[in-house]
């Protein structure tokens, strides 16, 4: 039987005490266990940053690549072996800064994977610079007079770009986050989770207290399949901030569905011996 402990590694994470990343880590293991997946069936791809270290501490296959580039790696791996359950993890700097264009394109391709951004509104690994999700006026080491820029809204972007599952979680609500991950993995298509992840060292604005005072979980009465309402919900910010599935669209073909070369089975299992190139050479005669 697979349990949460099945995914433990010999080493333990070395994030700072109190870091929101621990919540995401626990939620990930809980989700994988409740999905009944075995470690070898799962691939976690990550970028560079504190969040990007996740694969080292969840016993599955992992690929810890470059800052901002986990999504391309994940899409390649998924096309090569679509039987894998693919999770992608990165920070807000990784995904919304360096890797923004990959994010938009992954949404529109609807690749069947779950992308989780641990959004702490700051660059933590590099010890405290402004991020694309830092609030206007955010004072950081690289914006000592406060950030002059408007933060991006990842949920709105994802819906607009064609993601078919868009949700928001909070590492302070681990079980809720685990459920969102489960739903994301079960969803056929690109599932995107923006996850509030307090950084206890470098973000003194968006603290646990700040989030706890504002977040609420969407209830049954909210219908995430209505795109127009989803946009509205995604814009909700201020005193009340929604958590849960903001948008969901079923039935849209995935990138893998649209790739007939893998309809009969994973690419990696196709035989390589005896490929006949005579017809290609004939064409040139």
């Amino acid at each position, binding site marked *: 039987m697979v349990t949460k402990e099945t995914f433990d590694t010999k080493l333990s994470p070395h994030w700072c005490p109190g870091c929101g990343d621990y919540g995401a880590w626990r939620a990930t293991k809980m989700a994988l266990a409740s999905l009944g997946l075995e470690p070898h069936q799962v691939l976690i*791809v990550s970028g560079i940053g504190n969040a990007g270290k996740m694969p080292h501490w969840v016993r599955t*296959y992992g*690929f810890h690549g470059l800052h901002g580039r986990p999504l391309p790696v994940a899409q390649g*791996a998924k*096309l*090569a072996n679509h039987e*894998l359950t693919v999770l992608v993890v990165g920070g807000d700097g990784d995904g919304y800064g360096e890797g923004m264009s*990959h994010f938009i394109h992954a949404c529109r391709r609807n690749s069947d994977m779950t992308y989780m951004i641990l959004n702490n509104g700051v660059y933590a690994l590099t010890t405290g610079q402004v991020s694309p999700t830092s609030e206007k006026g955010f004072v950081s080491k690289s914006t000592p007079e406060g950030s002059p820029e408007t933060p991006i809204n990842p949920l709105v972007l994802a819906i607009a770009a064609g993601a078919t599952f868009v949700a928001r979680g909070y590492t302070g609500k681990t079980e809720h986050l685990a459920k969102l991950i489960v739903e994301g993995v079960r969803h056929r298509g690109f599932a995107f989770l923006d996850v509030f992840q307090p950084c206890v060292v470098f973000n003194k604005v968006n603290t646990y207290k700040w989030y706890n005072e504002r977040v609420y979980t969407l209830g049954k009465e909210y219908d995430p399949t209505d795109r127009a309402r989803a946009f509205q919900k995604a814009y909700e910010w201020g005193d009340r901030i929604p958590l849960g599935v903001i948008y969901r669209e079923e039935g849209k073909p995935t990138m893998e569905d649209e790739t007939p070369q893998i309809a009969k089975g994973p690419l990696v299992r196709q035989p390589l011996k005896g490929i006949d190139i005579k017809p290609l050479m004939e064409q040139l005669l």
Partner: protein
Amino acid sequence: MTAGYIFSKVCARGGLNVFTATEYPSLIRGGHNIYHVRVEERELTSPIVLVDLLVALNKETIDLHKGELTHGGAIVYDEGTKLGEGEVRPDVLLYPIPLQKYAREIGEANVMMNSVALGASVALVDYDFDLLARVMRETFGGKKGEEIADANTKAARAGYDYIREHFKPTFGHRLRRVEALRRMLINGNEAMAIAAIRAGCKFFTAYPMTPISSLLQYMAANGRAYNIVVKQPEDEISVINTAAGASFAGARSMVATSGGGFSLMVEALGMIGGAEVPLVILEGQRPGPSTGMPTWTEQGDLKFVLSASQGEFPRVVIAPGDPAECFHTTMDAFNIADKYQLPVILVSDKYLAESARTMVPFDERGVGIERGAIATEDVLAATKDYRRYRPTDSGVSLRSLPGQRGGEHVATGEEHDEYGNLEEDAENRRRQMDKRMRKLEYVARELPEPKVYGAGDSDITIVGWGSTKGPILEAMRYLEADGIRARFLHLVYLSPFPAAKVAQVLDSSRASFMVENNKTAQMAGVIREYTGRKVQHNILKYDGRPFYPHEIYDAVRRTIHGH
């Protein structure tokens, strides 16, 4: 451009050897386009500048190229184009024909003019019209193409008949069909694509860029038939990272780009070096810096490719010299990448990638697929303590693929221990670095040595790498006719560098010449670095054009004879 291709194909079908070279500016349509077709009965390895028959669809073409015409050469042009007194040399034969008039009568004037001129050309060289008609049918063919093919054949016939009826057969160049082996008309891109398909490349990504766009298109066109996933991602960063993911998951993968795109790939190149992911990367050079001259040729990226990306990691760099070498080295590249779990960079250039020439079909004997140390679940089950990055004698460690039970690990370009865990310990760093770099010692042992062509015992040595092979070989024939016996050292496998062989050849040379399509003699620098030897003379060309044999011949002869 199509007309030049058809003429080449017609010649190839008749058993003749063809070497084509295209020149076009970086414009979608229009501008001055050239399709140079060289035809002979003997094997050809290079383009030349001279022109026997100039087909000029406008006056500009005559102005630009009349100086290249040989004695007794000819110009086919529209009768409406007026040539002033003495504008062309008196020995040049003029064939004004109603190109526009016929074209307009038959169909879309601009396109049809090509076909009228084609027919006229075939008549002038006294060649087989039926062969032309057949190739036209194939080229335009298909269901929808039927009408187009008919119209074009009609236009060609009109041009053919016009020459026959209005001119005496004074043009001195005749082509005749010869019995010969069937030959492909093939360029470097096609040769590499066919090799990749044969090698079992299952995943191919590229972002369009001259000169590799036609390779992307070739792979895309054949992706369904050969079950290859071919994708055009959002940029070259995604191109290489996507392919890295596919390769990590176990699919043989390849990417193609030119210098600009390669610049974007550089960070990921190091990542796959550190994470030990196999990947074949084609860098088709064109003149830089920046977008430089997008549709022209150069060998300016050598040092960049040899050292691109921060830090140190093993890589293999291969620069084939002609389509046959493109085929065989691409096959090799996949095997080396897999066996040594590292990036293999193939280097070509616009000239090699896009110049079609006749070649006999590739010999597939001895061409195999070696995937190296990839685990099976049984092996993993029997391995108690699987370590993805376990140091071995050869530096190569057993590679498990995602999905295999018992092989779980993290692949990463960040420094790691034997398991793939992040580790910054000094001793571990040395061990992992040594392990990775050790692979090169083993690669070096299996790479073919540079070949020496021509008079092996001569003490006059011409050194070249990659695509300059053809022009150098032809220049050697001119030199020999002049009584200069030279040998040619051709470098194809560039990294790890074949220092011993190069040193040995240079040490036994009285005079040595480095031929490179760049400004700063980059290979001469590399040779110096690895052998301590200096190549005496540099023959360099960096105007965006490939070498013509006479340029090499002239430079060598001048030095040897002192005039």
